[in-house]
């Protein structure tokens, strides 16, 4: 559904997006991760034909983003949530969403049905006739998401959809993304939230100007050797800490009654550490895997690219 080949964007001397090659299949949820200024928004803007590419090529739904005649077709195919909601503050939630339904040429019956379905799904139905200017940031964001979906787009671009949202609303948005996937729609979104990416994405890309890695969150995480485990004891004393330090060599840190240990292979190391702790007289209450695999992969890849 989305294909890029050496896609590059330069702003003067700055290369914001550097030769990105990736493919996103129909019905796939793809997450683009990367630090601030990594080029996520710029990539999305190129794919939605808002800014021109400097080099390379890309297609969305088989249409070439570089061809003026194709751009209009791509825009008809996609729904976009930009970085800032950009609503008409004086107009109601319903009017904001309706405008986009009309612009996309959605017939009135289907438009009204979609507006009702989306506003209800996002918990905005009761506020449908309130001017959005009085809404909180998160509520505005939800209106903007409804607006992006009102014409049943085949491809959905969401730029940090859950930024500003409370945990419950974030969960709703994640569910909506999964529902879109179930409908066979393609979702491409930017996020800083690794946990979220792990939960909803079929594959993620990690970008920092260049695309550093693309794979499923699980596979990326499994590549990580360095992980951290927390061992919470009933009571942690100096002797116990010393025993673990002797056994491990290094990478051990004690805080309160919890011991943080860097482990290479949790399956092999964690039981050994528990044994050392028990032998030294410690009583283990919790053992927790701290570094999500994806987070570790992300931190390593982004760190290495400095």
């Amino acid at each position: 559904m989305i294909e890029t080949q050496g896609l590059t964007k330069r702003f003067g001397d700055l290369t914001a997006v550097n030769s990105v090659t990736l493919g996103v299949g129909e019905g796939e949820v793809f997450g683009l991760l990367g630090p601030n200024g990594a080029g996520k928004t710029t990539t999305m803007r190129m794919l939605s034909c808002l800014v021109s590419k400097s080099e390379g090529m890309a297609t969305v739904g088989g249409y070439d983003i570089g061809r003026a005649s194709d751009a209009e077709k791509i825009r008809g195919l996609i729904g976009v949530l930009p970085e800032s909601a950009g609503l008409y503050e004086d107009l109601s939630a319903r009017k904001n969403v309706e405008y986009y339904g009309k612009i996309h040429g959605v017939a009135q019956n289907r438009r009204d049905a979609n507006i009702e379905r989306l506003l209800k799904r996002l918990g905005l139905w009761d506020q449908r006739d309130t001017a959005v200017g009085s809404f909180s940031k998160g509520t505005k964001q939800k209106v903007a998401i409804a607006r992006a979906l009102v014409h049943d787009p085949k491809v959905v671009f969401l730029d940090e959809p859950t930024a500003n949202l409370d945990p419950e609303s974030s969960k709703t948005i994640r569910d909506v993304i999964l529902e879109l996937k179930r409908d066979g729609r393609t979702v491409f979104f930017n996020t800083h939230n690794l946990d979220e990416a792990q939960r909803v994405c079929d594959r993620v890309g990690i970008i920092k100007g260049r695309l550093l890695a693309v794979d499923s969150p699980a596979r990326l995480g499994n590549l990580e050797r360095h992980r951290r485990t927390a061992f919470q004891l009933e009571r942690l004393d100096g002797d116990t800490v010393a025993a673990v330090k002797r056994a491990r060599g290094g990478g051990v840190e004690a805080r309160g009654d919890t011991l943080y240990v860097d482990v290479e292979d949790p399956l092999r190391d964690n039981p050994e550490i528990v044994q050392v702790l028990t032998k030294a007289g410690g009583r283990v209450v919790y053992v927790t895997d701290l570094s999500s695999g994806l987070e570790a992969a992300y931190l390593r890849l982004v760190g290495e690219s400095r």
Partner: protein
Amino acid sequence: MKLWRSWVVAQNDLDVFAHKKYSLYSLVALPAVLSVGLPVMLWLLIQRNNASALEVEVLLNAFAFIFIVLPSLLPTILASYSFVGEKLDRSLEPLLSTPATDGELLLGKGLAAFLPSLLATYLGAGVFVVLADQLTGARVGFAYFPNAELEAILMVAAPLACIFSVEVNVMISSLVSDLRAAQQLGVLVLVPIGGLYVLAETNFLSLSGVSLLVVSAFLAALDLLLFFLGRGTFRREKILTEWK
């Protein structure tokens, strides 16, 4: 070019304008002050300075020109919002990622500035005609308006001047990113209009049929020129990325 889509854009902009109270006030106040003020001024001239019928007729004829000035001034109030307003609200980025083409957007935003401006001009003209006839009829000896000149102004020159102003203002609005700058630059439309007036007054002495013809032809030519210029200067990417 899908005209229905331009109309959708225009309707939305009209809806947004309708919520900008101060713009609405200016849109009404400007024609109101002129349409009431000028006839009252003539009445005072008759009462206090005992102006002759001929003097009053010359002034009435000259005042009719405000119905070329008004439709050039009013779009400044609205059209400055067209793109600058959307840039400030950040609503331009999602709008530009819809299938609406440059031409559809420009036409829609143009219509949204054109219709209220022309309507306000016509309402002002209605008030002006009634008041002017009431207040000067006794001295002039007949109802001066409506006459052929005013009809030509309202039917031909006013819409052309309005289109000219809308085009200039929409163009400015897409080029600058600050509302005040857009409105101040927008007033520049008065330069050629004022020039026209001076020319008309010096060469033809009055807004005769011939001078109106020249004015209208000139405006029509400007409208066409600006239409192509406007489409040429509209750059989505620039609008989106070259402002902060």
